[in-house]
């Protein structure tokens, strides 16, 4: 009875459907607009790498929690960390100065990149970037999970050299510089040889606008912090710009869907790229899940924070809502 009513109700309201010809025009306008936007927005940046490519793919393995049933995949959450260990043999503790949670929604149509500022206090006198130095990825991952309540499906750690290698392996990435940045690390003398700006070299400058970044430029740009308007927060944004640009490059060169090429990119970084996935997933199987995601589907944001004594941040009120939305996959 109710079922027949339903069929009749649906049939009775078919006349509400808008006219296809009109909607078609709007769609065409939308497509044209998107083209322009994509051309203009070819984004900018450079430094912590591979990751998005790897990470999004990664997105499917539950790491700290029991795996989801294949019939009902959940969202994917992968923690991406850029750290400052130099050289594979160095045992010196590395700090995780860039911490990004990559969230891919259940439908695999949208992704979010969410930065945790390195100066976020996670306990009195204890900042989040120290967690990695003290206890490695395992400790940082459990700290992030404790903070957010979001179970992680995998982690990706990449060092300076790994970022550079990955960027070179994909043929550079295109980022849009949002503020003029003069490098404090890389400069040249009059004959064009490397000379640190600290010793009087003329610094390399990244002017506002969109451009291609080679590996060394991407790394240098992403390392810059002290001269930026908002310091580490701006640097976090540059990293997210980079991840999106890298992902876009992997898509536009069809690398994401080509297991051999994807493997080459990851291999280029060698031990400077550490990927840890749960659930028996490979980079390749995970990459396949991202087929519906493109750069416009990736939102870039930072965890909302407030200043905190003595010299860092604490979570702002909106962070609670953000984490709840993440847990419910309703962001």
């Amino acid at each position, binding site marked *: 009875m*109710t*079922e027949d*009513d*339903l*069929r009749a*109700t*649906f049939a*009775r*309201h*078919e006349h*509400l*459907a*808008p006219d*296809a010809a*009109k*909607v*078609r025009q*709007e*769609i065409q306008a*939308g*497509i044209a607009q*998107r083209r322009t936007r994509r051309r203009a927005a070819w984004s900018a940046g450079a430094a912590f790498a591979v990751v998005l490519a790897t990470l999004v793919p990664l997105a499917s393995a539950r790491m700290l929690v029991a795996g989801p*049933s294949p*019939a*009902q*995949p959940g969202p994917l959450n992968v923690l991406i960390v850029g750290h400052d260990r130099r050289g594979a043999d160095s045992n010196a503790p590395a700090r995780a100065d860039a911490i990004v949670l990559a969230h891919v*929604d*259940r*439908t695999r*149509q*949208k992704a*979010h990149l969410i930065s945790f500022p390195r100066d976020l206090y996670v306990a009195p006198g204890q900042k989040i970037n120290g967690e990695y130095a003290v206890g490695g990825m395992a400790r940082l991952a459990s700290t992030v999970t404790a903070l957010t309540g979001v179970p992680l499906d995998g982690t990706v750690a990449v060092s300076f050299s790994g970022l550079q290698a990955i960027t070179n392996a994909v043929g550079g990435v295109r980022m849009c510089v949002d503020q003029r940045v003069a490098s404090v690390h890389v400069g040249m003398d009059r004959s064009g040889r490397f000379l640190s700006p600290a010793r009087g070299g003329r610094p390399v400058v990244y002017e506002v606008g969109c451009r291609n970044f080679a590996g060394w430029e991407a790394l240098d740009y992403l390392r810059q912090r002290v001269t930026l308007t908002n310091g580490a927060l701006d640097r976090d944004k540059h990293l997210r710009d980079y991840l999106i640009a890298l992902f876009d490059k992997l898509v536009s060169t069809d690398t994401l869907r080509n297991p051999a090429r994807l493997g080459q990119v990851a291999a280029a970084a060698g031990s400077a790229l550490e990927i840890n996935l749960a659930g028996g997933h490979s980079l390749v199987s995970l990459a396949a899940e991202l*087929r*519906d995601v*493109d750069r*416009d589907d990736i*939102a870039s*944001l930072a965890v*909302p924070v407030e200043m905190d004594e003595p010299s860092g941040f604490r979570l702002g009120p*909106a962070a609670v*809502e*953000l984490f709840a*939305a993440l847990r419910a996959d*309703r*962001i």
Partner: protein
Amino acid sequence: MTYEEFAAERLQSLLRFAVMLAGDPHTAADLVQETMIRVHAKWRYVAASQAPERYVRRMLTNAYIDMRRGSWLRRVVLRGQPVEPPAVPDHADASADRDQMWAWLGRLPRRQRAALVLRYYEGLSDNEIADVLGCAVGTVRAAISRALATLRVEVRPAWSGGPDDRG
């Protein structure tokens, strides 16, 4: 099939489907527009799938289910709007509406409404519905039976109030 051929042939049918989901022409047009722009961008993948139309309907259905919650960021962070309170069903409104059934469809959870549309408007089997919604068949059946139960309780003939109907 090219994107243009697909759009020319299937757009009207997609719009009807979207109206059943969304309940009003404006939201339906927005949903279809948004989805088709994505379809255009991904046409290679869509065309390569076994059933392009099914693929597009899946995108559309997901876009509908994710409609508001997908814009959490925009509403809460960028525009500073408060989180919307859930719509509270109201018998007085429902009986004032000429078409109670249609009004109550609008108050069902989106997933339940989508399941009803797929079964009773599109005529899909439970297996096919599960595929579109990306969930288990049991979940589809549970959603439909919950939705039907709600409608049976809430949608009443105009002159016969239930025992608890004091309004």
